[in-house]
């Protein structure tokens, strides 16, 4: 569970720095960096096997904002397979877009990802330059949302909060990611929590909002049951982002669960979730 109790201090520091003209642009030279392939592969039951294969940049590399941007970012010409239960699905190098919500993929397979928990999956990629990437993951059990309760404030009766309850299986170590969106799934998430049940001593886990909702609002609650590798991956890239902007934070290298001679970054995991859409009304 991430706790950030310094946001107010940071906001005050930032305000002070801005008001006194204490921020300025500087020229710095960073160490040389060799570009790395980046894998994002989320196996979502009921959807085709699909994957986004891109590459990283040196930090100050210029961005190509013209039509060549995608060509420079996407890694083409790789041989990609995903194996499970004795089967192998070969993913072809085609650009596809899922508009609900908006996601882009450049490798897509023929088969549909089965929902059966416990299935092990193996990813194999051979890049055009001959280097390799591998990864493994396992399909987890769905953890359903028990209920979403809308409560209006006893002090300010126009404001409400949403409480989301799930039941945790305490016999195993479980990890969850909770995303909360208002208005649409493409909106900026209002909450993004990573939770390990190591600290949960009750069977029930509750996720709450503040009293900030009003009648007519729509709340999208998504509870992902995630693997430890994905938990580490998300936590590490969130730390990498905060470590760059926050002097109190310790940065982190990205913890990937893909490896191989291509020296890749990224994640290969299953995406098991339940989503609840709630309209705020009395």
């Amino acid at each position, binding site marked *: 569970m*991430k706790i950030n109790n310094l946001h107010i201090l940071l906001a005050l520091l930032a305000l002070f720095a801005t008001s006194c003209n204490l921020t300025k642009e500087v*020229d710095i030279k960073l160490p040389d960096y060799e570009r790395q392939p980046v894998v994002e592969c989320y196996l979502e039951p009921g959807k085709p096997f699909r994957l986004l294969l891109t590459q990283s940049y040196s*930090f100050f590399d210029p961005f190509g904002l013209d039509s060549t941007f995608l060509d420079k970012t996407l890694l083409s010409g790789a041989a990609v397979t995903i194996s499970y239960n004795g089967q192998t699905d070969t993913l072809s190098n085609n650009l596809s877009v899922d508009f609900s919500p908006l996601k882009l993929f450049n490798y897509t397979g023929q088969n549909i990802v089965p929902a059966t928990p416990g299935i092990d999956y193996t990813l194999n990629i051979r890049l055009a330059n001959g280097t390799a990437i591998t990864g493994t993951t396992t399909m987890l059990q769905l953890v359903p949302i028990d209920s979403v309760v809308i409560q209006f404030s006893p002090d300010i009766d126009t404001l409400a909060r949403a409480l989301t309850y799930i039941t945790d299986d305490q016999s195993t170590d479980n990890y969850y990611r909770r995303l909360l969106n208002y208005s649409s799934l493409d909106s900026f998430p209002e909450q993004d929590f990573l939770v390990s049940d190591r600290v949960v001593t009750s069977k029930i886990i*509750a996720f709450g909002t503040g009293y900030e909702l009003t009648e007519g609002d729509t709340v999208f609650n998504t509870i992902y049951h995630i693997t430890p590798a994905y938990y580490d991956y998300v936590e590490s890239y969130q730390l990498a982002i905060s470590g760059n902007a926050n*002097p*109190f934070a310790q940065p982190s290298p990205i913890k990937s669960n893909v490896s191989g001679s291509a020296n890749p970054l990224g994640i290969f995991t299953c*995406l098991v979730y339940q989503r609840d859409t709630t309209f705020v009304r009395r």
Partner: protein
Amino acid sequence: MLFLLQTRNMKKIFTILLCSTLFAGTLSAQQVASVSGVLTDAQTGETLIGASVEVLSLGKGNVSNEYGFYSFSFPIGTDSVALRFTYIGFATEIRTIKPGGNIRLNVALRPEGSVLQEVVIKANVLQEKLKSTEMSVATLTTKEIKALPALFGEVDIIKILQLKPGFNAGSEGTTGLFVRGGGGDQNLIVLDEAVVYNANHLFGFFSTFNSDAVKDLKVYKGGFPAQYGGRLSSVIDVRMKEGNNQKFSGSGGLGLISSRLTLEGPIQKDKSSFIVSGRRTYADIITRQINKANQGKEDYNPIPDYYFYDLNTKVNFTLSPRDHLYLSGYFGRDVFGFKNETFNFRFDWGNATGTARWNHVFGPRLFANTTFAYSDYQYNIKNILQGFFFNLDSKVRDINTKVDFYYQPSNRHTMRFGLSSTFHDFVAARLKAGSDDGRVSFNSGQTFDGMEYGGYFADEWAINPRLKFNYGARLSAWQNEPAFYVNFEPRAAANFTLQKNWSVKASYARMNQYVHLLASSGLSLPTDIWYPSTEKVKPEISDQVALGTTYLINDKVLITWEAWYKWLQNQVDFIDGAELFGNDNLESQLAIGRGYAFSPLELEIEKKEGKLTGWIGYTLAWVKRGQFRDINNGKYFSPRFDTRHNLSVVALYNLSSRWQITATWVYTSGNIAWLPVGRLSIQGIPGEQFQPVVPVYSERNTFRYPAYTRADLGIVRKFRYKKWESDLTLSVYNATDRRNPYFIFLEPELKDTDFPGVQIPEKITAKQVSLFPILPSLTWNFKF
């Protein structure tokens, strides 16, 4: 055990030295008379630490110890001898005695008259520094501390210490102390012999020490005396004033962010006294009024409450000519809170210490100090939302008993020996959260306790008039079931006087540290956790050797050069992406490694007397950490505070008895930083925002910030009206308004695309954030 076997020979030698010294002391004791006593300030009754006692006819002398006690021996039959007692800032006192038997002579020295005369430093401090076996020591006077310019006018002992060579602040404006390549937790900070675990207020911008309540400060950065143990890199020994036992008096001040008031006086004249000293910030009083004035306004976000306060108290009683009792305490808290109709958040942290000390003079040669000390540091974060609660806290608590003996069998030997035991109680990141009805419950955190033991012996042996040798050892032990460690810590120091004004010195010290602060390599936070040594987290060890020379010019300017090397074992750091909170297995987040630091040149030029006083300090040093299995593939890297060059110039100039000008100038190589080398984009999962720029970090700490330079100025105007003395101090922090780097971040400029919620980066720039522009402040201090 293996180590103990290896050191058996060393222990044999040590035992022989100890026995022979005691025997020699006994023999000589049969042929001499002695004079001993306590030196005090005649105006306040405060004991004088480090005052000089000199036998004029012999040209030999001694200094009073940290309890004001001194002792000196004469051959029986000597004619009357004149003793000269001196202490800078005090009138010299000469007493004539007829040696015979054991004479007890308490002497009260009178301060030399001046406006706002503060209790000052060691007597003949430069001469003493020249002659002493002690090296790697920094001393400060309350006079210097109060006169020098300060951030927001808040006088701060620790920030003045940062101007001394060998000390590094870590980052601007904070009270961080990184001493000779040591970590921020490797400083033993004791206030009246009780450990202060977190000597910070306001996230490190101010220290917990109220200068009005401080009598004396002595800092060791190497060559540690055997009576100290438990930390690797420095000892900061702060002693509180005892209170004026002659008359009721007070002092205080009004500053930009806080006010201070100290009251002291006799409980029974000459026999007992008290002192109470308090300090509090008042920004919250103003912000509450602002919030009140804007109450009900739409779009107004109330400013959270923040304040800190300190309270120091001390009483002392002379129970008999041989017994003195001191009771002292400190309590300080920072409070940060926010409350409205639906939200109640409070974050408070602070230290509490209490000390009871009994000084007993057994005889002219033996003095004992028995201490019972309590200290705790804790933080609590509480948040209450209707129906739900969240509490997070950590705590470390010590209960310490110790006895220290000071024994002077002859003028050539001054021995110290003692025993101590400390009970430690830890609560590490205890999280309790859930619903009021109990349906939802989160719990995590660990509790530990441990026992730390120490025993030591040391002898300062004046082998001949030119050569002094201080040898000793400390045996320390740590018990935290099932872990049990015993460590032998040899200490040695020598001073060889080449000429009357020139000496060379050398020292060696091994230190062990059994408690560790789990802090990220970012900035110090009150939520950093103290953690005990366990089976996996072994005691930290340091070995430091130092070589130096001291040269005194015209009894006025002292030049000290030292070179040192420090080896560090069992250093504790976080693995990448460590998770501290909500984790019942903190050790899984730790990496254990080694380190080293060295300096071929640590130079200080001091001038303590005359119209112009001050010092110039310069350090050229290298600091490395490495061999952490889970960090940088075991490769060595520079910690944040590995600044190559540190130069400071401090000057105080008395224009007249009423006007004083002060200035400081600091140059430091830039801090080390961990900046990203690459970037990638992550589109994420449904409901997650597209992350156009995710930094890629590779090896730790490969970037050095630009150099840091700052000049501060101060002007002090002193006033006197009847019994009232006061001064106005104008401080100008960062007088040249230079923009120094506090941190650098890489900022992408993002451009919207046709797809909702998707932005792509257009350009990336490096931005430097500075913390403080030019900051003038005015402080009014008074005394009656």
